[in-house]
């Protein structure tokens, strides 16, 4: 197959597409584009949802690595030493402790049961972007006492009547207001609301935060223990590496990476996603293959006599095969490009207008890798679907082709 042969095959293919049935070409390209979109959209959406959830879990729940209590124990003990040890490890940006206590909030006539979390505001800043999510007032200072920051859903909205509320709230707390917190152990204290935040991560938005020293007052002792410690990795450091490091250096506690936790929490969900992705991929590929096969088969059947003539005047059967094969290649390339444009537009649109639910924000996560693999899969399927009938028709003997 020389250059001249390929040139002739390409000319014949191109002219057939240009001057043959326009609508059949447009529809075929459209079907390929739709199949591509179908192959890319659902997995992209699932990846987007997954990625969104993972980011929020990292940001607001576990950091990159979480150190919890050893099995059978309630707390991570020897807190200061443990924090110092973790913070001294290579690759660790910062470790910060958490402890929470059930409590009842009171504001005017409203009563609300919440979990009060104690944090070290300065260190927390390195691990969680909570400080950047203030919608009113400001974030906790390191040595604040008697100050609390609360989630927007907890604060509530004064303009909405209690019976119309989506979830119970304090009915419109504003920055500077005083709220009363009554803890499970009976300790009761008034706090000034220093700020109101909204993260979009439901469990955090339904919390309130106080400083570590305030919690020590609640407990009436120095807290040298924590429920768990969240650890932020420096950029470029692997979670597993840090986990191994912590374990080797004998950090007291149960060390888990985000990945470990997600596997437990979302393993079955991810598996379902993977199955759905696989099904949509296989269906897309089969549809494309069948459609292209039919389109090219019809085309070749309708041109049998012409193929016979071409062979008669000295056009080699390989040129004939490529004439039809290349038509599929061209349509597949157009369809895939169109599909890429379509999904890119969808991705941009969904990035600007994510589908938001209380649990997650859905956008399309499409990596160049996804585009490349899906394009390749679809392209290969198209080439097979096109070249099989093209090969068959190119082998027919001149006599029977010409008499067709």
């Amino acid at each position: 197959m020389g250059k001249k042969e390929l040139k002739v095959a390409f000319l014949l293919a191109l002219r057939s597409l240009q001057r043959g049935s326009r609508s059949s070409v447009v529809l075929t390209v459209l079907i390929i584009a739709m199949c591509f979109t179908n192959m890319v959209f659902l997995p992209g959406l699932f990846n987007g949802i997954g990625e969104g959830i993972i980011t929020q879990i990292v940001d607001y729940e576990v950091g990159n690595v979480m150190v919890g209590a050893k099995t059978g124990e309630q707390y991570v003990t020897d807190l200061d030493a443990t924090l110092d040890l973790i913070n001294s490890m290579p690759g660790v940006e910062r470790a910060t402790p958490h402890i929470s206590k059930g409590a009842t909030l009171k504001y005017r006539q409203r009563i609300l049961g919440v979990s009060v979390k104690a944090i070290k505001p300065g260190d927390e800043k390195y691990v969680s972007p909570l400080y950047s999510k203030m919608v009113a007032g400001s974030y906790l200072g390191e040595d604040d006492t008697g100050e609390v920051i609360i989630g927007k859903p907890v604060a509530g909205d004064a303009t909405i009547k209690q019976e119309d509320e989506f979830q119970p709230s304090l009915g419109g707390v504003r920055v500077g207001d005083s709220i009363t917190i009554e803890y499970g152990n009976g300790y009761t204290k008034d706090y000034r609301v220093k700020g109101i935040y909204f993260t979009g991560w439901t469990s955090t938005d339904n919390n309130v935060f106080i400083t570590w020293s305030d919690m020590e007052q609640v407990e009436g002792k120095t807290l040298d223990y924590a429920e768990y410690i969240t650890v932020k990795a420096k950029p470029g450091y692997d979670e597993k590496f840090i986990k191994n490091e912590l374990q080797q250096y004998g950090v007291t506690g149960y060390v888990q990476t985000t990945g470990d936790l997600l596997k437990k929490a979302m393993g079955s969900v991810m598996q379902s996603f993977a199955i759905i992705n696989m099904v949509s991929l296989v269906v897309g590929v089969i549809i494309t293959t069948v459609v292209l096969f039919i389109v090219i088969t019809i085309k070749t059947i309708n041109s049998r006599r012409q193929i016979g003539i071409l062979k008669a005047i000295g056009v080699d059967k390989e040129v004939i095969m490529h004439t039809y094969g290349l038509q599929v290649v061209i349509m597949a390339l157009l369809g895939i490009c169109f599909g890429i444009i379509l999904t890119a537009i969808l991705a941009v649109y969904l990035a600007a207008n994510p589908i938001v639910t209380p649990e997650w924000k859905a956008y399309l996560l499409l990596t160049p890798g996804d585009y490349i693999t899906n394009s390749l899969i679809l392209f290969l399927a198209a080439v097979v679907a096109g070249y099989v009938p093209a090969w068959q028709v190119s082998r027919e003997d001149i006599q029977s082709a010409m008499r067709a």
Partner: protein
Amino acid sequence: MIEITDLRRIYHMGNVEVKALDGVTLTIGKGEFLGIMGASGSGKTTLLHMVGLLDQPTSGRIMIDGLDILGLTDYEKTMFRLYKLGYVFQDYALVPDLTVMENVSLPAMLRKDRTEAQVKKDSYSILEKIGLCDRRDHLPRELSGGQQQRVSIARAMVNKPDILFADEPCANLDSENSRMVLDLFHEINEEMQQTIIMVSHEDWHKEYFHRIVRLRDGKIFSDGTNGAHHH
């Protein structure tokens, strides 16, 4: 020179044997303008297709310029057709999606011994010869039958083949257009010493042929120099 020896082609239709060619022996010299005539079903097309390498005989031998063409591989036959033979069909058989110019250039484009510029020049000059230069960017369906047949002759001639085959090239044309085509053949034959083998069953075409071979039931019924040819 074409030497055909005891050529047979038998078609099997179920249990029935059709002897489309039943022992044809024939020698055709270079530069001859040969007419093959005979009743419908007498085997004219079959003979033309055998000699033109479009079909394989059941038995017999065909030598073209000393080469046993039936011994060639499939690819060699294709190349032989591309370099040595030209064809004109009854229904013109142009590629409908290609322009006149593209149709004519197509066989030349495939030749390894032609540059792009040569292809263009050759196609152009042959279009000039058939008087359709101004129509070179038209599609075949935009031309009349006679014009299409002239384009198909141009396509057959662009590679300057040794032998030109034409199977009832005038069957779909009126007498005026038929004459135009036949005159074109005559001109080509005269100017380039082009061997032409043409099938026809129109009696008046005789006047163009140097020699007429008549077939009947797959056999040569008569073979003779044509005293009646006027040109």
